[in-house]
Structures are given as structure tokens and as C-alpha cells.
């Protein structure tokens, strides 16, 4: 697993605040089967802004452009990691 993916998983584990829950790429972030409520998803995204800043780029999840992608971006942990990676590559 890449370093930043590990960081994303670690942030997610912290937000979930329950070590019994095993995080997988397939885990939904919003809706059916999600272990997070909406405010926890907000907290996760803010934590990811900090992870991105440490990696030298800006993670955008609040602009209009990001909003139009939000249906796919927040569907699962894997989808969020994919979006994060895409933005990182685009800015490096």
C-alpha cells in the first residue's frame, strides 16, 4: 500500500474511532453500509486537506468542479483514494 493511502486509511480510522472496524476500498462512505455520518465525512475530507498539504498539493473537495464529481468521489473509500491520487498527479 502506498504511503499516502496508508495515511488516508489512518485518518479514516481516527474519524471512525472504532478499531474493530476494518477499512477496505469497497467500504461505502455515504449511504447504505457506511459507518460514517455526514459530519464525519466532512472531518475526513478536512484531514485529507492536511495530508495533501504535507504531500505538496491542494486537495479540492469543495469547489463547484469537485461538487459535480461528488456522486462518484464519496461512493467508497477506494473512490476517494482514486480522486485523491488523481488530484495529486495532476498537480505534480
Amino acid at each position, binding site marked *: 500500500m502506498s504511503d499516502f493511502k496508508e495515511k488516508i486509511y489512518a485518518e479514516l480510522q481516527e474519524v471512525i474511532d472504532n478499531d474493530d472496524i476494518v477499512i477496505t476500498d469497497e467500504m461505502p*462512505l*455515504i*449511504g447504505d453500509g457506511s459507518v460514517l455520518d455526514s*459530519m464525519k465525512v466532512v472531518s475526513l475530507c478536512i484531514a485529507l486537506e492536511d495530508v495533501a498539504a504535507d504531500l505538496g498539493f491542494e486537495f479540492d473537495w*469543495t469547489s*463547484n468542479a469537485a*461538487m459535480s464529481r*461528488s456522486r462518484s468521489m464519496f461512493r467508497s473509500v477506494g473512490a476517494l483514494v482514486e480522486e485523491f491520487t488523481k488530484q495529486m498527479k495532476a498537480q505534480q
Partner: protein
Amino acid sequence: MSTLIQKLQQIWQNADYPFLIHQGRELRFTNIADQKTANIDEIKSGDVVALIGDFDPESISLLLQIIDKGAIIVPLTEDTKGQHDYFFEAACVDVVVHSGEVRRIPRTETHPLVAKLREQEHAGLILFSTGTTGRPKAILHDLTLFLKRFDTPRPTQRTINFLLFDHIGGINTLLHTLFNKGVVIAPESRTVDSILSTIRDYDVEVLPTTPTFLRMMLMSGAVPDRIPSCLKLITYGTERMDQPTLDQLCELLPSVDFRQTFGMSELGIVRAKSEARDSLFMRIGGEGVETKVVDDVLYIRSRTRMLGYMNAESPFDEEGWYNTKDIVEVKGEFFRVTGRIGEVINVGGLKFMASEVERVALEYPGVSLVKVIGRPNPISGQHAEMTVQMAEGVDGDAKLLGKFLAERLPVHMQPRRIRFESVAVGHRFKRS
């Protein structure tokens, strides 16, 4: 003169369907009227009564009984329990009804607005709103006059009551359904899954909700495949909707109508009519409601407005106009809200002042200056972020401060990010 409960009993006497579906139980109006509740014999006309509850049979039954006593009701929920003591003082509450217990708070003075209602022997309703002074304002309505609007019968559909017990929209939906023989379905929880299964299981036709919920529903992947075909109308309000979300919804759900609602606790219920299902422009009006726009800001004058704030100056000008602080774009007789003046933060439809959070943070040991801002996001519309300057020589710990705030503020008011850096000197919330 018949009581409210008698009037409703008459309306419902030949109805062979439930008025409320709550936690899977179907309740006829007779069940509500017969519901065993706390003994409220000691409550008398003119008492200010805080009722802490939700849309459950006992709370609804108590609500009707308290109105019938000619009391002034303050509906509150568990979610705001950290603020209850403040609410009791601001609303001059005489009696608290909570979890089957009735407790009296001794008072020696009477608020002039309450005295006026008592003199007229009218029931009252007190709701809390945000305000520019920073603390929630106690908004007093003449409930006897408010109830008159229900004398005109209107059509109803099977509706989820998604709104809060302490919100004017929630109370209005409840009363509208009761007076018009509708059906209200109380969802088990306010998650997307729970709402969708409630709609499916109970043939719900109308979903009154917030843009935040609709954004969550879109992101969850439930649209369009898991939206039950019984759903005919989605109404949204209490916070600003964005066009991309509305466009996606309209495209994915072609057989569902979308309507924007507009209301402010200060004005009573104001009617809004969307220009089209995919348009954010709406016409604002209704009986006794007038509008005008001054410097792009919407002003409303309404006959059903509140009597006044109990803990602040009147917000109406000499001619009775109310400044909504909504910045609007005008197209003929339609308005579109494009922004808001002031510091109100709106998280998923729940509004509060930045200064409310700043005030609590300033109670934390070692905090010198605080600034809270609302930041837009695609999930909850906005969230709070906080910048804190600690006193010289004191180190800040975001986790500990976060825990302190979590113990004192409802979830939506808790800052999602806490930064320690200098806050501009001269900020109005500097600790004195």
C-alpha cells in the same frame, strides 16, 4: 368553544386510517388523544411550558394538551440539551416537561409580551433562532392566531415529517396534517437508507427536506434506482440549494416534482412557488405577505409575523418590514437567493452564529482570541472552522479543545478544523 383536541377528534371521527406512523406503529388520532402522558394538571393558562420531545405520540399528545390549556409552548429537542438552561431563561420558562416529569421553575417577573398574550387569553409558541447579537433569540408567536390559518381546509398527501420538533416547519407540517386528515410518517432515523425505506414501506408521496439531505442522497448512489415510485414531490428549504445538485436530481428523477420552500420563524409561514421544477427562482407570497427588494436584499412584511423577540429588540421597521438578510437576484416576480448578509453559519439547514461557538471556545482555559467561520462544502452545505490564539506561553491542544467543545455544543456547531495561530487584534470576541 371546543378545544383543539375536540376539534381534531371531530375531524378524525370517521377516518379509518392512521394520522401518524411512528416506529412502525400506526396511530389513529384517537390513540394520540388517549395517549398516556405525564400529568400536566398543574400547568395553567398563560404558563410558559418547555416541552422536550420529538414527533412521538407522547410529545404530540402533550403538545396538543398544552395548547388547549392556553399555555405558551416552547418545543425543544434532546439535540440542543447543552443550550436548554439558556433557552429556559431567554423564554422565561415556568414549567419544563421532559421524560414524563413536570418541573416548575419559580419566577417573580413576567415578560411584557407574555403578559400581553395572557391578557388576551391566547396560546403562544416560542421558537429559537439565530440573531446578530450572537445568542439564539426567543421568538414569540400568538399560537391562537397561528392556528386560524388551518380553518381553511387544504389538500394533503402522505408526508414524511423530516423536520425538527423545535422548528416552525416541523410544527406547521404536523398541524397541517392533523387539520387536513393527512398522514405523517416519522422516519426511524434521518439517514438516506432509513428515509428511503420509510418512503417505500409507507407509500410516502411527499418528502420535505434540505439540500444537504438531497446531496447525501445523490452521493449515496441511491438516485435514481432506489427512489420508490410512490414519491411524487420533494420540497427543499432552510438552506441554500445549489444549481448542480438540483439539475442532477431533476435529470435523474423526471417523474418527481421539486419545489423550494421559504420560511423564517420571525415571519410565520410564508408561501413560496418555484418558477419551475429545475429553477431556483421562486415567488414568495401568501395571504397577507408582501415583498420588496432594497439594495439586493429581500424584505418581507407578513400579517402572521411573530409578536416579538423576548430577548432582543424588534427586527421590524416602523412600517413592519423584516430584513431577511437574504441577497436576491430578481427576475420579474421571482427571486433567487444568492447569498446572505452576516455571519450565520448553516450546517445541513441548522443555523447558528459564529459568535455562539466563539463564546464557548473563549471559556476554555488559556484561550485568548477566537474566530469562527463557515466554510462551504458539498456534503453539509457549510461547516465551522475555528482559529484560536492562546495566551502567551500557553500551548494549544486541538484534541482537548475539540473535546471541550463537543461536550458543550451540538454536533452541527462543532468546528471541523481547529487551527492555532494569531487572530487579528481588535476582533470583537477578544476576552475582556
